[in-house]
């Protein structure tokens, strides 16, 4: 298959060998599961159960809260212990509403919806509804509700479903293992998704550092001529949606557009497997494979964990810490988010839990920029990090925005390569937050202005109406008086 080059990129230490040969193991049921209502982009789910309710595995316990949202299901059977606020797996550590489920250890399935018979000939709408009802979100990390993305075929003319198995983040091997161990399920899910989208062609992109996964997927796809498995160069951030689309199709997604606008929809391989299970077996998304790795973890592993298991449970299953971690990360080391602690739950978008030592992170105090230009050379988005950072340091967001800071995907390549150890991504995230806040503020002011102007108009109109009415009345009175006068005149004396 012909591939196309992408700009820049880096070659970090991948350190995938810590877990790449570890087969997926199922986490023993923890004593409690913590299921947050917000595990996805969009509106939080709405609670359907009450404290004390008994639920079965797979039962919907919170329903979709809007057009872009996803329901939550009980990951096992048990009793709803509480619905309360606990810290979210988010850097802020802010509390969010969470359903606490006490497992009864029977792990009993509820009456699941019937499998969709012959999904490859079913009405696409049926598949989308099933995916939505199964609470499936993008499992690569972004956690965008998948059903919404499967609907893109109705809006755009699509040509390719691109299955993202690049897994370009260091350490992570969960997608690698899923592809190696469940290749048939991934392929089946991909075919169902392609049907739902109405695309004729599926490409599965896997970085060349995963030869076994490429083999397994190629074998599983061999019966289906519409599916192509492509080994892509090992080049971080190959797994970035827009860059992968460019590498596969040569098409560059215009700024402010979606890849769907140029005919390509991207889904993660683990998402495809979840779709397979939802459509073929009626099983909602209640568990996922998580890579637990990093130098501070005693026995790194790939763990299939129920949604809601605490990070502490997974770490304990891996033998605890061998060293004091400098940092806990949700996701990969490049784009992952720092975790506020061990008590937060596993959520649908959590691909990895990394406990990293200081040596692995290699963070040094920042020194002055020497303008080496490495950040410019490697930026996959064609930006000039050195210049943007200089303006952001001065809080000059207007120029930073003009230089394209909002186009930055926060891939972290510039921070990684900077010899002065300047936390460039930190600057950019700060600027993005500030620019968004300013934008919101501006919109609010605009809104207020529009309302105020409308109010003034209304008041003026009312006054004018009143004046007009008064004038009309006066005129009428005058006319009446005149008529009377005339009448009087005409009356013969």
């Amino acid at each position, binding site marked *: 298959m012909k591939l196309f080059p992408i*700009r820049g990129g880096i070659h970090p*230490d991948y350190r995938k060998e810590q877990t790449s040969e570890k087969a997926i193991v199922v986490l023993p049921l923890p004593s409690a599961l913590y299921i947050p209502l917000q595990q996805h982009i969009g509106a939080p789910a709405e609670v359907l159960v009450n404290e004390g309710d008994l639920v079965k595995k797979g039962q919907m316990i919170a329903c979709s809260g809007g057009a872009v949202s996803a329901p939550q299901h009980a990951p096992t059977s048990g009793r709803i212990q509480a619905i309360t606020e606990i*810290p979210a797996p988010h850097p*802020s*550590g802010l509390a969010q509403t969470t359903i606490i489920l006490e497992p009864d250890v029977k792990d009993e399935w509820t009456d699941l919806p019937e499998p969709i018979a012959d999904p490859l000939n079913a009405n696409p709408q049926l598949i989308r509804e099933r995916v939505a009802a199964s609470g499936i979100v993008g499992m690569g990390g972004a956690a965008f509700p998948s059903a919404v993305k499967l609907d893109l075929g109705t809006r755009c*003319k699509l040509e390719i479903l691109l299955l993202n198995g690049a897994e370009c983040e260091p350490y992570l091997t969960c997608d690698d293992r899923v592809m190696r161990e469940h290749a048939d399920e991934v392929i089946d899910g991909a075919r169902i998704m392609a049907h739902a989208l109405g695309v004729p062609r599926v490409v599965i992109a896997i970085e060349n550092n995963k030869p076994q996964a490429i083999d397994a997927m190629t074998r599983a796809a061999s019966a289906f001529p519409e599916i192509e498995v492509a080994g892509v160069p090992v080049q971080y951030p190959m797994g970035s949606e*827009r*860059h992968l689309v460019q590498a596969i199709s040569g*098409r*560059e*997604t*215009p*700024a*402010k*557009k979606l890849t769907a606008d*140029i005919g390509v929809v991207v889904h993660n391989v683990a998402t495809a497997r979840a779709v397979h299970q939802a459509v073929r077996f009626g099983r909602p998304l209640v568990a996922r494979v998580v890579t637990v790795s990093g130098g501070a973890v005693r026995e790194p592993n790939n763990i299939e964990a129920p949604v809601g298991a605490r990070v502490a449970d997974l770490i304990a299953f891996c033998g605890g810490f061998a060293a004091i*971690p*400098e*940092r*806990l990360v949700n996701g990969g080391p*490049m*784009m*992952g988010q*720092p*975790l*506020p*602690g061990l*008590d937060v739950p596993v959520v649908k978008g959590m691909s990895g839990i990394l406990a990293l030592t200081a040596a*692995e992170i*290699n*963070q040094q*105090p920042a*020194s*002055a920029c*020497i*303008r*080496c*230009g490495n*950040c*410019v*050379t490697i930026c*996959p*988005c*064609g*930006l*000039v990090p*050195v*210049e943007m950072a200089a303006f952001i340091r001065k809080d000059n967001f207007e120029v930073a925005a003009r*230089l*394209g800071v909002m*186009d930055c995907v*926060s891939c*972290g390549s510039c921070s*990684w*390569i900077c*010899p*002065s*150890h300047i*936390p460039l991504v930190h600057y950019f*995230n700060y600027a993005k937050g500030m620019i968004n806040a300013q934008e919101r503020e501006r919109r609010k002011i605009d809104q207020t202005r529009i309302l105020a102007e409308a109010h003034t108009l209304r008041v003026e109109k009312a006054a004018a109406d009143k004046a007009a009415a008064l004038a009309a009345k006066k005129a009428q009175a005058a006319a009446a008086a005149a008529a009377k006068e005339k009448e009087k005149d005409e009356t013969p004396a």
Partner: protein
Amino acid sequence: MTFLAINQSGPFAHQASSVQKTMFTVLLALIPATAFDLYLFGWPAILLFTVTVGSCVAAEAICLALAGQPMKAALFDYSAALTGWLLAMSLPPWAPWWTGVLGAVFAIGLAKHTFGGIGQNMFNPAMVARVALLVSFPVVMTAWVMPHPLFSAHAPSLADAIGITFGGHMPDAVSAASALGYVKTELSRGIPVMQSMAHVPDLMDLALGTRAGSLGETSAVLILAGGLFLMARRIISWHIPLGVMGALFLMGTLFHAIDPARYTDGLFHLMSGATFLGAFFICTDYVTSPVSRKGQLVFGVGCGLLTWTIRTYAGYPEGMAFAVLLMNSLTPIIDQYTRPRAFGRTLKGEPLPLAKEKT
């Protein structure tokens, strides 16, 4: 159990790189050429080199102390040593000690720290110092000598060397013109290039360095090796060196073809003077050159063109230092006009148009 401070965005991985390592690699790349040249020019060169590098480090320390900046990190990033090293390589090897000290004041004090220290300077510190010295002390700064290799019969002893470097006892008989200087002087006397070229060292001597000139002007081959090493280590890219040498070579060749009596040829331009040192080590200075590859190519070509112009038409036989400083002043503007195209946008920054619907 919240035990970790969440105070920074990712990434939580970093390449094993630092400013110190980068600078050290450049020093490493300079070692072969420097060692050979110090051998060629003997004890006086070694003394001057030591004084110059030492003065630069001392000047850096003093400036840091005056500015109240943390001493340790900045002093041990090797940047001051590198500046001193490059300055020493651009001085006449037997020049008196005070050229090194004064050069350090110009380079570190004036060109670097008045602008705010490392990363802030507009102009290449070593070249500011060289030009300031050349303009102020033209005689001293053009007193070239032929090589007197260490341990050879005519080599000055350590005692002689102390006399030369610190006592100002420059022996009269040893001075010689550099190849570029000789051709220029002859040309001004009306002797055509073809004739004067017969008396300059041949290309082989120029390449090996057995000729008069500053440390960095001799042994082009070893400088080239160092430059290639830097490229292999990805400290520099090919854009600036190729730009400089390409422009110089093309201009030389072209004009030599037009009028061989007036213009020296391209190969001579490449092999003589500080072309290699300039192309690989001076023009590529991170701080004062553009950040984008495109900009670096423009910058390199500019340096090459200006060097050729100054060598050919101006009063000075060697133009590299002037060319670099002139181009340094253009760096911000080059940066502004050579930004890469952002992903999904046109060069002007507008979103790319969607491909036309097929009809």
